[in-house]
């Protein structure tokens, strides 16, 4: 057992170097002597594994086979060649690459910058709430908010309204997004929702939603760096940039990689954001693989969509491999820290002297981050007809809510039940699997993590058609059961990973208990493992609920109108955006409340789980 894990350590006694080691040197905890190989291993893991094989594995294999065939005839790589010669596909590939590389880079850098600037600033709790909240919002709602922001008419769009006086001055024309640039460049770029800037507009929406989470993670990581190290660097005359280079970069590198990977996985799957934000005429310029595979399903031969899907899948798997290589470090020694060493309330900032400049900066940040939501709420507070005619300067009224409530009550209730059911089933299936993987099987099997990671990044569009076939064989296609099952298999990998990591974390105090309870798996499970993993279970369940609540893709692909979840309903309201903006905004506001409530209710558990995750990175 490691020395550092010695339970004699109190937080005060932990040497700073050991605390740094948490960030840079914490691998899987030592497990020798604690594993309890059990004959029941298979029994614990079978239900979950069966579901994953049947509903993810089989359809993936089927997609691969489909991509080599045309009407059942083997055609080798022909489908791939045909697909790659399509200029539309090349646009989708280019954009997806952009989303997978540039967007996570922006999210990571901005997250770091925000964490550094806000960690000792005035108004900490408010800033954290406002910046982190967008991650819980449905992307449909984010899309509506940003479509309002970027609407080309100054009466509706805030960006156009702000740019209007400038464009008068520079003569760049009324519909240019960036009139302060040289007139020709501004004119060439055109409006925000035009073909040249639509991807930029969509990226800003995504970054707005994600930067807060990155900030939160970095703030935790920064907290684990002992202030002494930074003080030394500063005493030696290092500027903020110097501190970043000499202290933060080496110590936060792994955290940054994980964040990058997380944001890349999410960004490359962007789907409904583009559907809502991009007007029909620029959908082809904003095209992503996620959309193109979905669109091409029933257009061309099935082999084409399958080939495209396989290409996408291979790119994603390559990404996973790259990530594993970047994060893998054979020299790292497993280190265990007493869990009392966890910084308390780290997400609140350190209290420091209030300075006017900092207050101004904080307020500016707050206002800036509130704009999209404020616009959404303001738009929802108008009569829909008046809103369509006069934009947000129309008189306030609750008519939009009055109009949309009868339409939304059913979907809201059904989505609530759906998300709740999926949440319970996923946790019920993932917890035994995670427990078996960490405690009952043989230690150090790298494959389970690899399989879970692959299942986690598998884009649902790639396997949609074969999955429907499997669901059809089960006589479930087009039923609520199909939607629930699809959500369940998509939720199992991430939940299992979170729980696996929580079960695996064995703080020294618990290890003593575990050695004592060596003879009884059940008692060990119930008295030590489960109570310790409670925050992770709550966080994983909350994440799952929010995930299903905010979903559009699965419902669009598998729902046959028995559920019609809230995301789909709002997508329909926003279809004719100018006339539907009022009701769509009201719907978006209503649909955003439950996930926000869930995240706020489970805030402590979520934060603890994130903290535990960062410590293990």
């Amino acid at each position: 057992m490691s020395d550092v894990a010695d339970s004699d350590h109190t937080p005060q006694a932990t040497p700073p170097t050991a605390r740094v080691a948490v960030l840079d040197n914490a691998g899987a905890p030592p497990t020798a002597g604690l594993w309890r190989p059990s004959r029941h291993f298979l029994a614990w893991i079978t239900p979950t594994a069966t579901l994953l094989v049947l509903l993810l594995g089989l359809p993936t294999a089927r997609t691969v086979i489909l991509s080599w065939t045309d009407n059942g005839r083997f055609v080798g790589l022909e489908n791939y060649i045909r697909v790659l010669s399509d200029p539309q596909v090349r646009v989708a590939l280019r954009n997806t690459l952009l989303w997978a590389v540039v967007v996570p880079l922006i999210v990571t850098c901005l997250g770091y910058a925000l964490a550094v600037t806000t960690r000792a600033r005035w108004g900490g709790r408010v800033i954290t709430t406002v910046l982190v909240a967008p991650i819980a919002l449905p992307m449909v709602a984010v899309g509506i908010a940003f479509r309002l922001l970027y609407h080309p008419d100054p009466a509706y769009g805030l960006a156009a309204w702000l740019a209007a006086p400038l464009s008068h001055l520079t003569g760049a024309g009324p519909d240019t997004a960036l009139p302060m640039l040289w007139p020709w460049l501004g004119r060439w770029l055109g409006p925000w929702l035009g073909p040249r800037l639509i991807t930029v507009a969509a990226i800003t929406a995504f970054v707005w939603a994600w930067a807060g989470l990155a900030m939160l993670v970095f703030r935790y990581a920064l907290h684990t760096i002992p202030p002494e190290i930074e003080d030394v660097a500063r005493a030696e005359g290092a500027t903020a940039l110097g501190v970043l280079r000499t202290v933060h970069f080496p110590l936060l590198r792994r955290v940054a990689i994980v964040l990058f990977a997380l944001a890349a996985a999410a960004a490359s799957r962007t789907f409904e954001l583009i559907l809502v934000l991009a007007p029909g005429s620029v959908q082809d310029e904003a095209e992503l693989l996620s959309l193109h595979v979905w669109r091409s399903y029933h257009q061309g031969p099935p082999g084409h969509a399958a080939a495209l899907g396989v290409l996408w899948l291979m790119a994603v798997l390559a990404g996973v491999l790259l990530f594993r290589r970047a994060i893998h470090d054979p020299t790292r020694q497993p280190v265990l820290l007493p869990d009392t060493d966890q910084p308390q309330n780290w997400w609140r900032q350190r209290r420091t002297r209030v300075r006017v400049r900092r207050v101004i900066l904080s307020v500016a940040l707050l206002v800036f981050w509130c704009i999209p939501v404020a616009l959404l709420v303001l738009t929802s507070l108008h009569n829909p007809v008046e809103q369509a005619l006069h934009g947000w300067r129309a008189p306030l009224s609750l008519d939009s809510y009055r109009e949309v409530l009868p339409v939304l009550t059913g979907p809201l209730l059904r989505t609530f039940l759906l998300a709740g059911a999926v949440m319970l089933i996923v946790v019920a299936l993932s917890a035994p699997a995670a427990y078996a993987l960490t405690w009952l099987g043989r230690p150090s099997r790298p494959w389970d993590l690899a399989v879970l990671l692959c299942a986690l990044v598998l884009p649902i569009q790639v396997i949609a058609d074969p999955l429907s076939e499997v669901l059809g064989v089960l006589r479930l296609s087009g039923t609520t059961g199909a939607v629930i099952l699809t959500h369940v298999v998509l939720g199992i990998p991430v939940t299992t990973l979170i729980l696996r990591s929580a079960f695996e974390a064995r703080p020294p105090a618990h290890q003593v208990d575990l050695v004592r309870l060596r003879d009884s798996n059940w008692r060990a499970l119930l008295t030590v493992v489960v109570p310790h993993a409670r925050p992770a279970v709550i966080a994983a369940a909350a994440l799952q609920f929010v995930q299903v609540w905010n979903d559009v893709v699965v419902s669009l692909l598998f729902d046959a109108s028995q559920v019609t979840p809230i995301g789909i309903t709002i997508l329909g309201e926003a279809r004719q955006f100018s006339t539907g903006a009022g009701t769509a905004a009201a719907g978006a506001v209503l649909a955003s409340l439950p996930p926000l409530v869930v995240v706020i209710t489970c805030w402590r558990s979520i934060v603890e789980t994130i903290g535990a995750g960062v410590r293990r990175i």
Partner: protein
Amino acid sequence: MTPITRRDALRLSAAAALTPILVSCASSAPLVVTAAWSGSEADAFQQVLDDFTAHYGHRVEYISAGERIDALVRSRMRANRPPDIAILPSPGLLDRYRAHNWLHPLHTPPSHSPGDAWNALTSRGDQIFGVWVKATHKSLLWYRSERAAILPAQASSWRWDELVAWAADRARTGHPPLAIGAADGWVLTDWFENLLLSVEGGGEVYETLAAGDTTAWDSSPVQQTLLGLAELWSIEGVFPGGGRRALLTQNDEAVIQVFATQTADLIFEGDFVASVASAFHREGAEDGLRFLPFPRGDVASPPLVVGGDVAVLLRDSEPGQQLMSWLARPESFRPWLRRPGFLSPYPVNSDWYESPISRTLAQQLHSGERRLHFDLSDRLRGPLTGGDGAGLWRILQDFFAMVTSGDVAPRQAVDQVMRELARITAEEP
């Protein structure tokens, strides 16, 4: 949040999970009908179904599928539990489903017939696979009654070049003459279809294209049509805010530009413009709405493009056949005919329409003065099938962007589109 205890939530979610199982166990299932209609249209259709239930005693369950109707039918077919009847928004879907052998022919031919142009799309040999339930008139130019004075006297029978000349004059005075929702690709395909029918030889090419012969895209009428569109669309100041703004304008917003904010004079689109306009213009009703026929070209009469919704039978049963026959009777739709915004594909007693606009439009559909052509883009298959950012929609939007930008000469833009059409149609196996 709703005050639901954890135990309640558990019970409810268990019930939700069990619902499909319970439903599939129920024996005397009602007929299931699905269509894209929602809101007030769904209410009106429900009345039609209620009358059927009152008459025959079979219960009917209606599912509003919105734009996902194709996905719904597919996924349910896969589990071998299709809805009994689906009402499809385009005959292209009917073709595809028939190719899959999903459709059942009618046992007895329907009592009424909307006409040969319609019947040709629903029958194969002597079998009839669909029943038309709703029609859309897509060859109209709408304006406010106050704007009548600025239109030329011969506007009710004007030719394409007269429209172009008038638009150029009007645009020169600083008043944009036309509103267009170019963000919706179907608006542009409707322009293309109407003008194609107005050019010399366009009618034949139109039907050849609709029949699936893609070589006809490379023809002089198609080129003439694109040139004509370029001529009108490239006029400086023809659309409020310019072409780039028009590409971000959806059809509903374009209607508002004509009938509420009055930033444009005319809007071309189908009969459904009336229902959007009446919600937004001051009078709050159909008064004040006027319309003109789409201009004729080299041919004698103006074009008439129609769209429609067609009911198909996905599960054969006696009640299902009865409901199909019920939907084929124009009388069944009388509750809906009373409301504005519904046109019957069948010639019916004009007193059944309460809206004067509907009455006139229905008369135009059935008078036989103009040869009726069914919407082309709804009949296209393969890579030209429309959709946001796809098929003919995308091609015409790119064309619109080119000709309105002023950077590309109309003829060059037309050549580019002709090449793109040739490339895409060559892909087809």
